[in-house]
């Protein structure tokens, strides 16, 4: 048997696609033939995505989306549908961290992380689901984190959202499986991105000592798993959380 992954004729929406894991996912899906709408929070970020796509010969465009705003989401989907058609591959990747010990955590640090990382997954997914059920085909892939399973001091807000996303995915998978829609969660470990570059050196070293593969992951190594789940090759996987962490946490 030969394994070919093609996403020709598919339209994919990837949130938070200006850098890091989201950028790698958008570029990988695009490289496999999908038309990609990659979102960024600013107009400058969206332009950079468009420029990157053009340079790599990827169909699609960068667009502005504030995942916490229903109005911004409605605007994005309308323009994306008019230009490219309704997305049937959705990658909920946009996320933020606002780390703090719980005893010091501000309500705003809790609420903004919940809104961006968890409520937005509800919001964007719901908005895209109607077209997927009509198409009788869809792929929803939510980017979680190893922290959602193993926990991490100072990240109670972030971890709550990442565990929440996995439970959301399992429930939705049960709801929409009969429509040919799969819902999965990909949980990256310690990946070399701007989000992990800010960690203090001592914390980086202590994390590295816990990774059997002995190195950080590359964003492309998350993107390849997402591409598999988005393709027909991954068509029988649903409701699952795939851990991609170099062995740092084995579930």
């Amino acid at each position: 048997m030969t394994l070919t992954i093609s996403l020709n004729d598919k339209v994919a929406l990837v949130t938070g696609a200006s850098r890091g894991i989201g950028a790698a996912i958008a570029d990988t899906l695009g490289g496999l033939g999908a038309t990609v709408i990659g979102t960024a929070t600013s107009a400058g970020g969206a332009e950079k995505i468009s420029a990157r796509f053009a340079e790599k010969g990827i169909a699609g465009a960068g667009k502005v989306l504030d995942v916490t705003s229903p109005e911004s989401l409605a605007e994005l989907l309308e323009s994306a549908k008019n230009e490219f058609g309704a997305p049937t591959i959705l990658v909920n990747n946009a996320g933020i961290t606002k780390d703090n010990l719980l005893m010091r955590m501000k309500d705003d640090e809790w609420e903004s992380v919940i809104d961006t990382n968890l409520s937005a997954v509800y919001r964007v997914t719901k908005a895209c689901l109607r077209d997927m059920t009509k198409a009788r085909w869809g792929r929803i892939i939510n980017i979680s984190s190893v922290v959602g399973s193993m926990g991490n001091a100072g990240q109670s807000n972030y971890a709550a959202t990442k565990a929440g996303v996995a439970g959301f995915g399992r429930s939705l998978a049960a709801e929409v499986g009969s429509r040919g829609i799969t819902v999965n969660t990909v949980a990256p470990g310690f990946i070399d991105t701007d989000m992990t570059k800010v960690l203090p050196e001592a914390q980086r070293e202590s994390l590295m000592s816990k990774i059997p593969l002995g190195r950080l992951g590359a964003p492309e190594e998350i993107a390849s798993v997402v591409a598999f789940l988005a393709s027909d090759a991954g068509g029988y996987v649903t409701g699952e959380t795939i851990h991609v962490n170099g062995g740092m946490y084995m579930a």
Partner: protein
Amino acid sequence: MSSIEERVKKIVAEQLGVKEEDVKPEASFVEDLGADSLDTVELVMALEEEFETEIPDEEAEKITTVQLAIDYIKENLG
């Protein structure tokens, strides 16, 4: 232009994958036509699109038979 009855029956048949002749006015979507809860949600969405209207959730829940769907559309578009 087909009548409201015909348009509703056609959509019900399409959405639930049943024959149009089985879509009798008194037929219940769930009990007679084999719809599950997701089917009924999709059916209401399809009716909304066909008749370019929005059916509030509390009204949608009451539309359980073909006749009730026809009545709702007639009352709200008439």
